[in-house]
């Protein structure tokens, strides 16, 4: 066992290392047992769950872009009841904290989901995905409006005693104001970023490449966007951030930690190499040892806390 301390806390939840999975890219975890020692993960963040089952979007649901993938799964999932009855107990057997990602198309659904999951001891934390359009408010994603994010967070908090993570959409002008709204609503942690809204054209068929037209861009292509949002947000809030977006190596994970993330999530990286999470766990530990750090907290935010930090200016005009 290494002497380096890699445990971090998100609210009342302590995870033994800062590595979790990105919701929707790791199934329930069970599918990955052949490649991943689930016990070795800091936490397993499972596929997004909704009140009722969902069939998802029309195919094609996935296409490749330069260093990225666009997907429009459409939250296909069996619904929270099936999840709780059939899947959760199996995952719980691995004794790794389980973070359940929840999504609703109307705000009250988030409260209902929290209430249902509150009874499940196997659930260690809730992660509210606020990237879906709010049907009631004209279709703009919930997560683009600080007031709605505040409301959702507050509602989830009221219905659970478990730590609540709010997963923010990057498709906003001002990520910091949204992050602060979640913090004010009582969030114990933030997850950033969800995928970036994008589109590809299938020029052969002269139509959008995805059945759903628009999709979420993920993978290494978005890493600079995610790092920027983590860097800015970490300086503006006091709650921990799970940073993710394009992590495929331990070096990428170190970038996120240095930018201010307390933990990291692996999404698309699982598709390239199903053992990516394991390599990131080991790589972070080795990095800390090799560089003489004794606790992971020493590098969290070092890029802006450290000696070398400079002043952020406009990249366009040097104002």
């Amino acid at each position, binding site marked *: 066992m290494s002497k380096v301390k890699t445990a971090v806390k998100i609210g009342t939840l302590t995870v033994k290392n800062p590595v979790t999975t990105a919701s*929707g*890219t*790791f*199934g329930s975890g069970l*599918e*990955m047992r*052949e*490649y991943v020692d689930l016990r070795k993960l800091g936490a397993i963040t499972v*596929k997004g769950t909704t009140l009722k089952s969902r*069939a*998802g979007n*029309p*195919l*094609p*649901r*996935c*296409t*490749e872009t*330069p*260093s*990225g*993938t666009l*997907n429009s*799964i459409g939250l*296909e999932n069996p619904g929270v009841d099936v999840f709780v009855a059939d899947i959760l107990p199996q995952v719980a057997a691995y004794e790794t904290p389980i973070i359940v990602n929840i999504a609703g198309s109307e705000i009250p659904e988030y409260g209902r989901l929290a209430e249902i999951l509150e009874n499940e001891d196997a659930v260690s934390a809730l992660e509210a995905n606020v990237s879906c359009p709010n049907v009631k408010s004209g279709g703009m994603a919930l997560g683009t409006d600080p007031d709605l994010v505040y409301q959702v967070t507050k509602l989830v908090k009221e219905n659970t005693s478990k730590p609540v993570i709010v997963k923010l959409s990057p498709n906003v002008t001002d990520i910091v104001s949204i992050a602060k709204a979640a913090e004010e609503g009582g969030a114990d942690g933030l997850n950033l970023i969800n995928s970036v809204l994008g589109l590809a054209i299938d020029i052969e068929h002269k139509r959008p490449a995805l059945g759903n037209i628009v999709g979420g861009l993920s*993978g*290494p*292509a978005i890493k600079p966007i995610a790092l920027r949002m983590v860097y800015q947000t970490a300086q503006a809030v006091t709650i921990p951030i799970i940073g993710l977006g394009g992590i*495929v190596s331990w070096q990428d994970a170190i970038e996120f930690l240095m930018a201010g993330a307390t933990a990291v999530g692996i999404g*698309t990286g*699982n*598709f*390239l*190499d*199903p*053992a990516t999470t394991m390599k990131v766990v080991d790589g972070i530990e080795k990095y800390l040892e090799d560089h003489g750090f004794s606790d992971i907290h020493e590098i969290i935010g070092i890029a802006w806390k450290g000696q070398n930090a400079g002043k952020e200016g406009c990249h366009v005009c040097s104002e």
Partner: protein
Amino acid sequence: MVEQGKILINEHVGKDIWRMELKAPWIAQKARPGQFVNVRLTEHTDPLLRRPISLHGIDADNGIICFLYLVVGKGTKIMSELENGDSLDLLGPLGNGFSTAFQGKRAVLIGGGIGSAPLYPLMEMLKAQKKSVTLIYGAKDQDSIVCLDLYKENQAEVIITTEDGSAGEKGFVTAPFEALLRNESVNYVYACGPSAMLRAVEELTLKYGVDGEISTEANMGCGLGVCLSCSTPGRDGKNRKVCTDGPVFKMGELAYE
């Protein structure tokens, strides 16, 4: 399993079609006909995703597997540029594979274009079980027909159709297939090819009341059952993952819109 396969042969065998043999003992040991391998093309991030390629040959004794692939885009182009001795990052075997436990003796295998790739190891397996095999192989033209020797060596009957008539019957696989169904006894049908072909074949099997399986495709994210990119509706209203519930499905199992 992720296995680094060592390339033994990578040869141009037909119009934009290549055949690759790799030393990959672990996969060769585990694989069943109809399964596929997810191939990583670079340690960099473009192209990013792995590419699914069917097992066209499985030689467990010698630890060798084989791919038959059509160069259509940047991933398959990279494959075609690899040389003997290069290694290739393989994730697999993946998917469910064909089942061969059908009643009766006579199997008809229908391959459309590169869709014939997974049928070869299936034919070998059926032959080992003393089934009789007819292959109906449809292609654009003569130059797109490859690897027939394999079938002939195994005493399989081969019927060719080409769209332009440059080899075999002019037209599509459905014509000789329907003739077979009408005139001979067919116990089981396997088909792999473009979805229009699969649909037509499936309709014929339903019409003539013959069972069988199809191997289908979908754009894949993970190949592991975790991303739901490949999720395809079944007739029962439930979705199936092409990567782990498939790529082989029972005739009539999937819904076509």
